[in-house]
C-alpha cells in the first residue's frame, strides 16, 4: 500500500510546513508524508479514513485559524479508534498553560519549535526517526 500516509503534517503556515518537510526529507523520512494546511480539512480527512489507513504519526501545530490544535487533539483522543495514533504537538508556544492542557488531553509529545534552523532540523529529524523507526506502534 504505497499511498499509505506515514506522517500527517497539520500546519497552516506554508513556510513552516516546507521547512519541516525538508528536515524530514534530509533524513529520508518524508516519502509518505501528507501535508494538510487547513485544520478543518485535516479533521475531515482523519475521520474519513479507515483504521488501516491511519497515519503512523501526526505532527500538529497549536495555533491555527478555525479549529486549533487543542481541539483537534481533543477530537482525536476522545475517539476510541483514533486515540492510538501518536500525536506530536509541534508548536512555537512555550506557555505552561498550553503544555499542561496538551498533556492532559493525552498528547504523546510536545515539541517547541526552535528558532535556530539547524536545531529545528535536528529536532524534526529526531522526531521522525523516533516515531517511525524506533517506537513500536500499535497494530
Amino acid at each position, binding site marked *: 500500500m504505497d499511498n499509505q500516509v506515514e506522517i500527517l503534517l497539520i500546519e497552516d503556515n506554508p513556510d513552516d510546513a*516546507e*521547512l519541516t518537510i525538508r528536515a524530514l526529507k534530509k533524513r529520508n523520512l518524508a516519502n509518505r508524508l501528507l501535508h494538510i494546511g487547513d485544520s478543518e480539512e485535516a479533521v475531515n480527512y482523519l475521520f474519513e479514513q479507515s483504521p488501516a489507513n491511519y497515519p503512523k504519526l501526526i505532527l500538529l501545530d497549536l495555533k491555527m485559524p478555525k479549529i486549533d490544535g487543542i481541539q483537534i487533539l481533543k477530537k482525536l483522543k476522545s475517539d476510541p479508534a483514533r486515540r492510538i495514533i501518536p500525536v506530536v504537538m509541534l508548536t512555537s*508556544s512555550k506557555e505552561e498553560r498550553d503544555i499542561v492542557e496538551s498533556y492532559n488531553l493525552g498528547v504523546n509529545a510536545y515539541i517547541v519549535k526552535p*528558532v535556530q*534552523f539547524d536545531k529545528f532540523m535536528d529536532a524534526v529529524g529526531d522526531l521522525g526517526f523516533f516515531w517511525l523507526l524506533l517506537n513500536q506502534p500499535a497494530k
Partner: protein
Amino acid sequence: MRLYIDRRVFFGFMTSLFILLLLGYLSYRNNQRFVEQRHWVYHTTEVLDHIERTNTNVVRLEELLGMYVISGDTSYLKLYNNELQQGVEHYRKLFELTADNSRQQAIIDSIRLAGRKKLTIHRAIVNARKQSQATSDSLIQTADNRRSFDRLMQLLAHLQQAENMLLENRLQVSESISRNFQITFLILMATIIALLTTVFVIINRNFRARMRAEARTNQLNQELEAFTYSVSHDLRSPLRSIRGFTEVLRDEYGNQLDDEGRRLLGIVMRNASQMGQLIDDLLDFSRIGRKELMPTRINVQVLVSEIIHDVTENGQAARVTWDVKPLEDMHGDSNMIKQVWINLLSNAVKYSHKASSPRVEVGCREEQGHVVYYVRDNGVGFDMQYQDKLFKVFQRLHGKEFEGTGVGLALVHRIITRHRGKIWAESTPNEGAVFYFYTQL
C-alpha cells in the same frame, strides 16, 4: 530630609503644633495669673479680717474703760492694756497689708490720728479715775469722747467698705481671667480640630490617589509585558522562516553564487541570527517582570564555578585566567540569579577577550550590612560618562566589535531591582571594568 507629603498637610501640622505650643504657654500664663489673683483675693480677706478685729478692739476698749470707771478694779486696766496692744498690732498689720494701696493708707493714717486722739481722751479718763469716779464718769459722757469713738468706727467702716469693693473687684477679675481663658482655649481647640480634620481628609485623598496610581502602574506594567511577550513570540515565526530558507538557499544553491553573492547571503543570515538573539533576550526580559519570585538559599560559590565551567567548555573563555575568591551564600530566585551571574561573567569574558592576558576576578565583600558581589575584568572597559546608559534596554556602549543586543545588562538590572538590590559599575577605558551588586531579600 526631602518633603514627600503635601505642602498643605505640612502647613496644617505645623500650625497645629504651633497652636498647641501657644495653648501650653497660655495655660501656663493663665495659671500664673490665676494664682496671683487668688493671692490678692486672700490678701483682701486678710485685710478685712484685721479690720473686723480692730473694730472689735475699739468697742472692747470702750467697754473696758467703762468697767474700770465704774468698778475702779485695776484688773480691767490690765485687760484694757492687752486689748490696746492687740489693737496696735492689728493697726500695724493693716498698715503693712495696705502698703500698695495709697487710698487705704490715707484712711489708715486718719485712723491713726483718730486713734491717738482717742487714747489721749482715754488716758485723761483713767487719770481722772485715780482721783475721783465722778470726774471720770463725766469725762466719759462728753460729746468729745463719743464723737472720737464714732469717728473711729466710721473710719473703720469706710476702710471695710473700700476693702470689700476691692475684694469684689478682684473676684470679678479672677472670674474674667478664667472665662477669657476658657473662650481662648475653646477657640484654639476648635481651630486645631478643624485643621486636623482638613489634614486628615487631604492625607486620605492623597493616599487614595497614590493607590490608584499604583494600581494603574501595575496594570500598565502587566499590559506592557503581555504586549512584549506576544510581539516577541509572533516575531519568531517569520524569523524562523527567514533563517531556515536562507540556510536552504546556502546549502542547495550556494555553489551557484559567486563569492560576493555568498558574502551578501552571509550578511542576511548574520542579521537574522542577531534578530533571533534579540527576540530571545526581549522575551527573557519581559518574562522576568511577570514571573513570581521564588526565593531560596543560593550557593554562589558552586553556581559561579558551574557557570565558569560551562563557559570554558564552550571555548569562549579559553585564554581567561579566573580568580574566584570565597563567595558567600545569598538569597534569591535561583533561576533569575543564575541569569545575573551568567550575564555578568559572560560579559566579563566577552569584553576582555581582546586583552593580551584576559583576567576575570570574582569576589564579595561586606559593605554597610550588605554582601556586595563584584566581577572585575581587565578588558576594554567603558566610558564612565555614559554609565547611566549601561543598564538601559537597547543602549550599547560599544560597536560591532563586540557582539551584543543591549538587553543583557537591562535584564540583570531588572532582576536585581526585583530583589530589592542595587547594581553599579566602575571603569576606566582600556583598563577593565568592575560590576558590583547586592540584594536585600
